[in-house]
């Protein structure tokens, strides 16, 4: 199996910046070429081979193993292929990616899929803050693609997101969907406070319960959001377990009326 084993002891407490860990840069290269790819170990430049034992050259997909929670930029800007990580990953995983699939069988740190443009990230554990968000100073967060999180997602998830889908099986942190420009965030467990603050358009669908909403959201009554059934079916087809619920009447809250006000938060009917 073409696997790269991470030696966390070699890196110590200092984070490793390894945005070369993408199928774009790894597929088709020999073990020797992969080992020479540049990384940053703190302020020092180094080679990937200093920290990874490369089992075989990847041909179709790339596997990473180990505790990579201090490795930043895994799958960053990837545009193709499949990258499977067996362990937790550090910040900026899948950030700015435009295609391909990134599966993380562990937890992901902050800025997961920040400003991503396409492809799919699937975290089979929890995600940190700012998944799918815009970097500070940027005008828009993710503009396409899908982020699926089986566990919890931290604060400011999907902030200023422009397009795409974020599905969170566990708890959704405070201020998620803040400044949402468009796109869809689905939350299947409890959600935090101040959701959708400043959102212009887009959808925040909360299937579990209704948290205290900002007063700038107005109750628009009950309806059956048929489009959500399509999302749920799509997620079920992918195997996203939390989506195994049926579409049902939901209460629509229009807002944020301090902004454009064409966004919506959908909450359970009762």
């Amino acid at each position: 199996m073409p696997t790269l084993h991470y030696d966390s002891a070699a890196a110590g407490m200092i984070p490793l910046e390894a945005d070369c860990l993408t199928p774009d840069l790894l597929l088709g290269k020999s073990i020797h070429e992969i080992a020479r790819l540049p990384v940053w170990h703190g302020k020092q430049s180094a080679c990937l081979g200093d920290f990874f034992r490369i089992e075989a050259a990847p041909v179709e997909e790339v596997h990473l193993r180990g505790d990579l929670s201090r490795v930043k930029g895994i799958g960053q800007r990837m545009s193709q292929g499949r990258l499977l990580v067996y362990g937790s990953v550090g910040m900026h995983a899948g950030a700015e990616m435009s295609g391909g699939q990134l599966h993380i069988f562990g937890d992901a740190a902050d800025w997961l899929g920040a400003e991503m443009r396409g492809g799919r990230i699937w975290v089979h554990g929890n995600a940190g803050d700012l998944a799918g968000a815009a970097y500070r100073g940027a005008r828009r967060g993710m503009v396409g693609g899908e982020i699926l999180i089986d566990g919890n997602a931290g604060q400011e998830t999907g902030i200023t997101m422009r397009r795409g889908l974020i599905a969170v099986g566990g708890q959704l942190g405070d201020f998620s969907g803040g400044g949402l420009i468009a796109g869809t965030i689905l939350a299947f467990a409890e959600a935090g406070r101040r959701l959708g603050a400043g959102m212009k358009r887009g959808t925040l669908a909360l299937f579990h319960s209704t948290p205290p909403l900002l007063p700038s959201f107005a109750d628009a009554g009950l309806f059956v959001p048929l489009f959500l059934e399509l999302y749920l079916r799509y997620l079920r087809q992918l195997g996203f377990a939390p989506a195994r619920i049926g579409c049902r009447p939901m209460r629509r809250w229009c807002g944020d009326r301090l902004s454009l006000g064409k966004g919506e938060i959908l909450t359970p009917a009762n």
Partner: protein
Amino acid sequence: MFRVNQIPIQDTFAEAFPMTAARVVVTALEPCWAQAAAQAATGFASSVIGCDCEAGIERLLTPDETPDGRPGVALLFFAFSREALQKALLARIGQCILTCPTTACYNGLEAAAERCVPVGGLLRYFGDGWQISKCLAGRRLWRIPVMDGEFLCEESFGTVKGVAGGNFLLLGREVGCTLEAARAAYEAIAPLPGVLSPFPAGIVRSGSKVGSRYPKLKASTNQAYCPTLRPLVASQLPPEVGCVYEIVLDGLDQAAVEAGMRAGIRAACRPGVVQITAGNYGGKLGPIHLHLHALLREYADAPL
């Protein structure tokens, strides 16, 4: 003589021609609403001689078969060009499906982007700025607010080069038995995928020819098959024939039309039918020739 179930089949061909086709999937809260929308949307669509398109109900869909898990109906639409088809879809979906309670409308044919026509992408303007776009797995849907909630419609619909004008003629002794044979043919065709008979109940009594003695008409009655004109024209009818019905078929491809003709003709081979033939214009109308003997070879009676 080539016979199927004792009924002579003439050695001739149906003259079919290419048309642009689309499949529309309509769903609703209950089957009755989906069917009401479907019937309205496919009404007045029997022939492009006088209608903007040819259309019909392909089949009813169970909740398992529809994108949103509700009961639905698959509709087929045919027109001479992609532009004409788009115009027809826009008018018919906008006036007959959008307006019907609880309905939603989805594309039923995958096609390359250049072969898709925008429908929801134009109907969205009915939302007057309150419409909402959703992109899911490369498909864009429009949520248009209406008085019972939202009308959900796919942005664009795929088109394919279909085949129209497949046909066969049932020459019978009198109206009763010929109509019975025609109904049997229609019922055999109706469940088949990708093909439909666009005329009322699938049966045509006014077979036409190209042109007329009146210059403004592009089609007129086919006098050679009108029993009451037998002594006045070059009739194609044997003396014992008192009634003729035609079944016209449109399909998503030639194979679907052939399958429909095969099933229909076999079902129509019953007592009272004197002969089965097909309409053609000597090869001048359409490039696709569907030869009856070739279609039915494996079902032919053994020679006496």
